[in-house]
Structures are given as C-alpha cells and as structure tokens.
C-alpha cells in the first residue's frame, strides 16, 4: 500500500508543474497566440528563480532557516522571481507575434533556443555559480513531511498532505483562479473572443493587441512558475534543462482541449506516466518484469503520441490561434 501512496505522491510532483504550464499555454492560445516557447520560458523562469533561492540560501546563515515558515518564504520568493522573469521573457514573444505579426512558431522556437543559451552563458560568467552551468540549491528544506492535522486523514491525507510541497497547493489554487478568470470574468470572455474571432472582438470594442499581450504574459508568468516548481520539487540543481516538459505541457493542453478541468485530468495522466517511468525501480511489482529503463523513459512520450493520435481528429482549438491578426481582414 505504501507503494501506491508513493506513486501518487510522486505523481503530484510531476503533474503540478505540467498543470501550471499547460494552463499558461491555455491563456496564450485562448487569446489567439500559439506559444511553443513554453519550454524556454520554463527554463528561463526556473533559472532566475533558483538563482535567487541559491543566493538567499548562501547569504542567510542556516540558523535563520530553522523555522518552517522561513524556508517556505524562501521557496515562495523564488517562485515570484521565476514568475516575473517568465512573464518578462514572454514579452519578446508577445511583441513579435502581436506587433510585428511574425510567425508565432518561429518566434517561439527562437525563445526556446535563446533561454538555455542565456542561462548557461550567464551561469558560466558568474563567480557565484563557480563559473559552471549548474545552479545548486537545498531543496530538501522545502519538503513538508506532514501537515499537522490534515495529514492524518486516512486516504486523502497520505496523498495530499504528506511528503508534499507547498507548491502543490499553489498549483491547485492557480487552477481554480484560472477557471474563474476564463469563464466567470469579463476579461476571460474578451480573452476567448480574441482567440475565436479577433475581428469581431475588435468590432465590439475590445483591444485585441492588449488582450493578446495579457494572454501571452500570463502564459509567461505561469510557465516561469511551472519551470521553477518543476526543478525545485524534482531535482537538486538546475542544469539548464527542463527535459522537454514545456512540450509535454503543450500536449497536455491539446489533450485537455483548452479547458482547465480537462487539462487537470490530462496533467494527472501524464504525471502518472512519468512517475512510472522514473520511479519504476522503487515499485516492486514492476521490477520483476525487468524492462530496461530506457523503455520506461519512453513511456510518457509514447503515451502522449497515442493519446494525441486518438483525440486530435476532432480537436477544436481556438479558431484564430496562430493566425496573424490583421485589423482589416474579414
């Protein structure tokens, strides 16, 4: 039984960043801008967020870290830095896609290539990181072993309130907020209209440029946060890569049909797949089969392909996503 809880706990580590980044992608594509730069923005946000955390952890002596609150504050401040960096970086994509009417896939690819180059370049130029590209941090300080009261609840307690990071709750909070914004606010309605028929939105008085800028910036914010959470919760150092997560998030977005709740389901599915892939050696049932580890690593991607093959036929993305917005077009 502990194996089962272990799988679910691990699954959350993988699913939450996927969820957040995919929600970010949703905001961008719903406004009409295809954002394949999620991978690069994740990396960019993760780099600056973790750099900040590393900085804090080195400057403040460990005694000040004894309280759980201060550890979580460090985590949160890194998260804010990551989000802001991601949002700023995504502005390049917004500018190219909205003002310069560039091909959104090309601009996204440029950002994807730019992010690791800049992260490695800066890391290697700084004495603080010993002139290497790895940025280490002490992530174990952030792990919450057990939430005082809630962790005792029989079933849910073991999954959601033990061996968890505060970022899991942040992820669900973001999900809830995103749902409300997109479906229950005026801004959300305008956002969606820009992605379906920007000319009609323009005729109704909505500033398509401004809305799309918002859409892309929110996606940058969330992608930065997601990248940061991904590295912090699954690794001990930042090594200039997010292992294709940004692209997995795109697949989650498509699988989730651009709807928040579906995206959650898709993210959980993929998180589960990824967990099987990395934690298979800890699961006794699977060990017996002696499947090579490379096959496990392939599984999330194979599963994605399969899922896409089945669901994409009737895929209904935002109608105007990826199209250059020309004000006078019919």
């Amino acid at each position, binding site marked *: 039984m502990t194996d089962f809880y272990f799988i679910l706990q691990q699954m959350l580590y993988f699913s939450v960043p996927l969820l957040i980044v995919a929600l970010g992608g949703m905001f961008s594509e719903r406004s009409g801008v295809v954002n394949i730069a999620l991978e690069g923005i994740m990396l960019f946000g993760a780099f600056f967020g973790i750099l900040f955390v590393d900085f804090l952890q080195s400057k403040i002596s460990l005694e000040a870290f004894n309280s759980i609150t201060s550890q979580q504050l460090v985590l949160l401040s890194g998260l804010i830095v990551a989000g802001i960096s991601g949002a700023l970086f995504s502005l390049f994509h917004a500018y*190219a896609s909205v003002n310069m009417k560039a091909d959104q*896939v*090309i601009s996204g690819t440029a950002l994807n290539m*730019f992010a690791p*180059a800049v992260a*490695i370049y800066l890391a290697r130029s700084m004495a603080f990181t010993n002139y290497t590209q790895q940025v280490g941090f002490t992530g174990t300080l952030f792990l919450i072993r057990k939430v005082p009261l809630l962790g005792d609840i029989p079933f849910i307690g073991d999954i959601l309130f033990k061996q968890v990071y505060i970022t899991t709750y942040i992820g669900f909070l973001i999900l809830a907020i995103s749902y409300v914004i997109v479906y229950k606010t005026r801004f959300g309605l305008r956002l969606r209209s820009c992605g379906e028929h920007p000319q009609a939105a323009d005729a109704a008085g909505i500033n398509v440029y401004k809305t799309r800028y918002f859409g892309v910036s929110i996606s940058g914010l969330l992608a930065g946060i997601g990248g940061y959470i991904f590295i912090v919760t699954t690794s001990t150092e930042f090594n200039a890569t997010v292992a294709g997560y940004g692209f997995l998030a795109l697949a989650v977005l498509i699988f989730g049909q651009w709807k928040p709740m579906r995206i959650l389901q898709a993210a959980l599915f993929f998180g589960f797949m990824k967990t099987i892939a990395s934690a298979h050696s800890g699961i006794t049932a699977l060990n017996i089969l002696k499947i090579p580890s490379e096959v496990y690593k*392939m599984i999330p*991607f194979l599963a994605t392909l399969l899922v896409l093959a089945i669901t994409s036929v009737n895929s209904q993305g935002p109608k105007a996503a990826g199209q250059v917005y020309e004000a006078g077009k019919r």
Partner: protein
Amino acid sequence: MMRNFLNRYINFFSSLLAIIAGLLFGLIIMIITNPQDASSAFFTILSGGFEDGFTSISRTILYATPIIFTGLSVGFAFKTGLFNIGASGQVMIGAFVAIYIGVKWSFLGPIHWVIALIFAGLAGALWALLPGLLKAYRNVHEVVSTIMMNYIGLYLVMLLVKRTVFNQEKNESMYVLKNAVIPSFTLERLINGLSKIVGSRFAQSIEKFIVGLFKLINLDAYDLIINYGFFISILVVIIIYIILQKTTFGYELKAVGFNKDASKYAGVNEKRSIVLSMLIAGGLSGLAGGIIYLNDIGRSIEVVDVLNPEGFIGIPVALIGLSHPIGILFAGIFMGYITLGGFYMQIHDFAPEIIDIIISSIIYFSALVIIFKEFINRMSKRRMSRGERND
C-alpha cells in the same frame, strides 16, 4: 531602379538584416558582461573561420555539412507547411543505423560507407513517417508529434547502442570499420588519382605546383581536408532544388504549403503530399546522422540523455536560408563559420554559448523582418500606382 533591385533580392536582404541584428545583439550582450574583451572576442567570432588557413576552412566545412542536411530537412518540410522539429530524432536514428552497419557489416568492402549512408537516410525517413501519417490522417500537430519522436528516438537509440554496438569504457558507441568511414578529399588523394591518369611523374610536378602556389598566400595545401559528405550535400542541394522548382511533385508540395484546402480543391492529394514531404525531410536528417557519425575522428554516439544538437541547428539554418536549398547551403556554411569563430573566441574568456545566443537572436529577428519585407512591398506598390495615376 533601386526599388527594383531591392524587390528582387528582398528575401536575401531580409535574411542579411536578421543576421546583422543578431550579431549586434550578441555584441551588446558581450559588452555588458565583459566590456574589455568584448570587441576583440567579437572580432574573433567574425574572423576565426579564416585564422588557420586551410585547417579552419576544412573545419568550417566539417561543421557545416551536417547542418546543411538538417537545414534542408527542416526547410523542405517548411515548404509543405510543416514544421519538422523532429530533425534531431531523425538524425539520431539515422546515426545509429549508420554506425550499426559500419560496425557489423564488414563484408561490404569499399562501398561500406555508401551502403551505411543510404540506410541511414532510409532510417531517418522511416522515423518521420509516423508524424507524417499522424498529421495527414489524424490531424495531429506535427510540432508536438515530432518532439515526442525526438525523445522516443533518443531513448530507443540509447537502448539499441547499449545492446549492440556499445563501447563500455567510454559510454559511447563503437568506432566504425575503416571502409565505413566517409572518405575525404585531400591533396594526396587528388594527386594519387591524377597519377593514375597522367602518370606519377607529371602528377608529382602538378603537386609541387599547387603546393607552391598556395604557399605564396601563406596556405599549406596539405591542410585541406574536405569530407566527401560536403560534395554529397551540394549534390543533394541541387536535387532538392530541382524537385522543388522543376517538378510537378514539388509544385504540389509548395501548393499544399501555401493553402491546404485550395490545393485539395485543385486536385492535389494533400494527405499524400504531407506524408511524402515528411519522408523526404526525415531522409535528409537521417543522411545527416550518417555523415556525422561515419567518421574516423573519434566522434561516437554518447549514451546520455541529450538530444542531438545538429538537428535543432537545422532550424535556424532553414530560416536564414529562407527554406531555399541554395540559401540553406550558404546559411549552413555561415553557421559553421561562426561556430568555429565561437570556439576560437574562448581564448578571450567568453563562454561559447554566446554563439547560441547569437543564433537564437538571428532566428528571432528573422521572424521580425517579415514586417520589413511587407513595408518594402507596400512602398513599391504605392509608387507603382502613383506612377500609373500620373499617366
């Protein structure tokens, strides 16, 4: 007059503008991070490709050849409206097949490398088949499917290398047999070949003449080593050009790229075009894999979780070359040139990733210059209509 000139070569100028902008941006970053060394380092990036005479030129061609192939792969797919980000996986699959044949099929004799290369291309094509089919028949976005294939290919190749051609000490694939190495063009080879035609005495005097000639401009003619892969790449560039510009098939592919529905209405089987386009694109990247790894300079497939970089560099090469085969040829050479410059620049205390920064900014700016093209187009149209009104 000036406007006509600009119009005809507008694509070339747009690319040039993007390149200059990217380089300048890189220069600015270098100045910000290390003001004193920036200008000399930047100069080294620009001139490094010529520093060591023929050795540098040979190295530039060595870097350029595989990315010309991956550039063609990405560019060809672009023409059909497809974004082939899967070049990396296709290269890796092609590389494995090439190495496997190179190590195991010793019975092939002198044509060993040719067979290995051909199969590498076929393997790459096969790897692109699935994304092509998924796009054509199941509407799966090729960006996501090819990225998935990249990772699947990576892990598959890691598994296969470990099981078949593993060099355990170095954690990489084994070296290929001598006959499987793609030969290189050198002065020696040329003279050897010549002596079979015109006799060895005459050939040797030609040799002395050539060596002496190049010595005048301070070049050592023996340093010139050009892999046959480069000549193959030129051949392939010409073939792709002919396919795209001179055949009905190429015309159909381009039509599908411009407007899928209109081509379907005009009778083009757009599903078949998409699949065939991906097959060719995959084949080109597979060839790249063979070109890179059928070597005797010690480069083997490392069994690590890293996607092949040459596949991704094909994207800027295709963009800078504007998806035109000849443009891609020059773009590949340019990319090889500044990459070499980047290596030389390391003496000046800059991390070589600055080259990646420059390349990615060039891509970014090349996406922006589209608006520059539109601007020029609009200007010339306005002048034309004004001229008509004056009549």
